[in-house]
């Protein structure tokens, strides 16, 4: 297999690809090649993000990579029979799994991949591959700038926090830069708790060096020499890959003392979280990193001023940090030229739930939900109408069809009392029971509440009870009013957005899908009858 002329065959190692059997496919290809005495070079790349087509196999050709997908182990002998390694041959082209050149697939061609430029293309743990695909160009530029100039570039790019709160990254960095301290920290929030999101996971598993580079630049910009990646414990593959990439970066002088021969030092360590959703909230995260329970801290002081171990700390989401290298490489204006209004650049959108073509779509801000759901997404997986979508995770609002033309833009979503959050879009078909979803929102808040403030700790538990009463038809009007009062209390009285935003899914369900909240068994509820029919079908 050491032959450099051997044909390269790519089989992803991303967890979603693995979850659909990519390892078995890779093994079958290697075994069949050996059996037939054919020399191949098997590369375990990241995923291109077309998850409905995983395992997504590619073969390198002089015209570019040709895709075959989805490939199950039992497809493999037939692929060899069809001479699939000679991907432009008549027989190979005629094979039903041959999709042609990957780069020509409309699903990919219609995207603007900036943060995800390399994802699916490179071998995630190959530093050589990273360097060959524009890796560490951003750092090279950053090393020529002062901290203040790096911060200015980030500010001018218009990048806003991709964790969900959309606070301008450059302004946050400036606060840390301007706060005098011997010790400062860069903390990457890799807790990715939101249901329907996986873009952080993909960056960490499929292009870990871009995150490492982004954090290194952040450290140089604000004068921090230590970084931590706080990684959710549900991502064991990401943990392995990050540690492997960190070791390689260290070995090659991209981490440690005197980075690339400069006076700058930056060290990086991955820390595992322990399954608490609230620890994605930045101050709870810092408590957890310090070895404590994840109780939310009062703000101010902001972490930028008093963060980890009381020191000035940049806390940024994986995507925010992974977007820094391309900004430093291509310039602030290049990035700011994408987008609409005050939402500059691109958003890695994650299509999830009941959707035919689920996967990662990176687009400039401004596309509509409908483009995503029906253009990229191809409608629901079940073929039934999409009735509701939840955007922005468990704390995001549910949107009905009448709002599907809203452009993806932080301010436009704000106007309809919804959030973009971390860019997750979860589709539900018409069998969804929105009262149940509202109940679940309260239930989730009750399970995950840190317990520090009453509106969240008690309100969420009460919320579950009240929705149960509404569903049962007990004192209907009184309890409907109670849900609204309870939501008001949580909105206004919670210390953090867990309690403070749980009313988004609850009230949006109530406002847009009121029919699902009518007492059950009243015979008046058409929607519920539809659901019964849908379930029976």
């Amino acid at each position, binding site marked *: 297999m050491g032959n450099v002329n051997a044909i390269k065959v790519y089989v992803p190692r991303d967890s979603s690809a693995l979850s659909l059997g990519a390892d078995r496919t890779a093994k079958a290809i290697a075994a069949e090649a050996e059996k037939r005495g054919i020399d191949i070079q098997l590369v375990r790349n990241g995923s291109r993000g077309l998850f409905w087509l995983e395992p997504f196999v590619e073969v390198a050709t002089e015209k570019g990579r040709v895709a075959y997908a989805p490939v199950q182990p039992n497809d493999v002998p037939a692929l060899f029979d069809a001479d699939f390694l000679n991907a432009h041959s008549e027989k190979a082209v005629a094979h039903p799994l041959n999709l042609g050149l990957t780069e020509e697939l409309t699903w990919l061609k219609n995207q603007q991949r900036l943060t995800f430029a390399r994802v699916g293309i490179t071998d995630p743990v190959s530093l050589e591959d990273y360097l060959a695909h524009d890796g560490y160009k951003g750092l090279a530029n950053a090393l020529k700038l002062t901290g203040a100039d790096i911060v200015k570039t980030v500010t001018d790019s218009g990048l806003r926090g991709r964790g969900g709160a959309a606070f301008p990254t450059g302004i946050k960095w400036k606060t840390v830069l301007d706060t005098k301290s011997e010790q400062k920290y860069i903390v990457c929030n890799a807790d990715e708790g939101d249901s329907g999101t996986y873009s952080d996971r993909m960056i960490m598993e499929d292009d870990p060096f871009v995150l490492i580079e982004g954090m290194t630049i952040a450290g140089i910009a604000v004068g921090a020499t230590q970084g931590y990646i706080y990684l959710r414990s549900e991502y064991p593959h990401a943990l392995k890959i990050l540690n492997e990439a960190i070791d390689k970066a260290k070995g090659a002088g991209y981490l440690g003392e005197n980075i690339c021969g400069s006076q700058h030092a930056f060290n990086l360590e991955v820390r595992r979280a322990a399954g608490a959703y609230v620890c994605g909230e930045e101050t709870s995260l810092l408590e957890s990193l310090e070895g404590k329970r994840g109780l939310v801290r009062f703000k101010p002081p902001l972490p930028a001023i008093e963060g980890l171990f009381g020191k000035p700390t940049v806390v940024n989401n994986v995507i925010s940090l992974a977007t820094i290298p391309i900004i430093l490489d291509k310039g602030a204006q290049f990035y700011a030229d994408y987008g609409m209004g005050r939402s500059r650049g691109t958003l890695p959108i994650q299509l999830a739930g*009941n959707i035919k073509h689920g996967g990662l779509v990176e687009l400039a801000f401004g596309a509509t939900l409908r483009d995503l759901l029906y253009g990229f997404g191809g409608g629901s997986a079940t073929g039934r109408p999409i009735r509701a979508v939840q955007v922005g995770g468990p704390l995001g609002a549910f949107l009905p069809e009448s709002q599907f033309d809203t452009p993806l833009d932080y301010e436009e979503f704000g106007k309809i009392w919804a959030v973009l959050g971390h860019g997750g879009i979860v589709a539900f078909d018409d069998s969804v029971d929105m009262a149940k979803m509202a109940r679940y929102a309260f239930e*989730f808040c009750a399970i995950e509440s840190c317990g520090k403030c009453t509106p969240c700790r008690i309100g969420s538990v009460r919320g579950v009870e009240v929705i149960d009463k509404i569903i049962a038809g007990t004192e209907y009007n009184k309890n409907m009013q109670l849900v609204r009062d309870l939501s008001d209390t949580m909105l206004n009285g919670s210390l953090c957005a867990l309690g403070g935003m749980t009313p988004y899914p609850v009230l949006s369900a109530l406002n847009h899908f009121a029919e699902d909240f009518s007492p059950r068994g009243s015979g008046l509820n058409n929607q519920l009858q539809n659901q019964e029919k849908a379930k029976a079908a």
Partner: protein
Amino acid sequence: MANVLSTETLDAEVLDKVQALIAQHKDMPGALLPLLHSIQDGIGYVPEACYLPISKALALSVAEVHGVVTFYHHFRSHPAGRHILQICRAESCQAMGSEKLEANIKSSLGIDYHQTTADGAITLEPVYCLGNCACSPALMMDDEVYGRMNSQKVAELISDARATS
């Protein structure tokens, strides 16, 4: 609180292991979580009998250690089965029928969440998103994620797991 914790004793071998892990981690900044992870990875759970040695090494109270262990869903204070099956209960998986799957799994294993099958093979846990939402419904057996699950595929996974140690 402390007297509730001391009912369990560890055998010498396990205690040695725990002491070694404590020595290895105690000087890290924010050592407690990495230490608890290493203990759970090493012996499968965090025995309450560890609280005292941990608290001594990290200059914490036993109650503080207890508070941290119980705050995080990931840490268990009792041994689990040979395999851990986590079913995703979050929205994307719900949209693809995870509730039915969850009910089927519970009834076929004859256990509820946080319980272990009588043969000691499988402990069932809920999880809120595995980052595999484009392939819902998803679940995790030990460290491997599985997507687009149905009852039949889960049954195969479970019987494979039962057949391995």
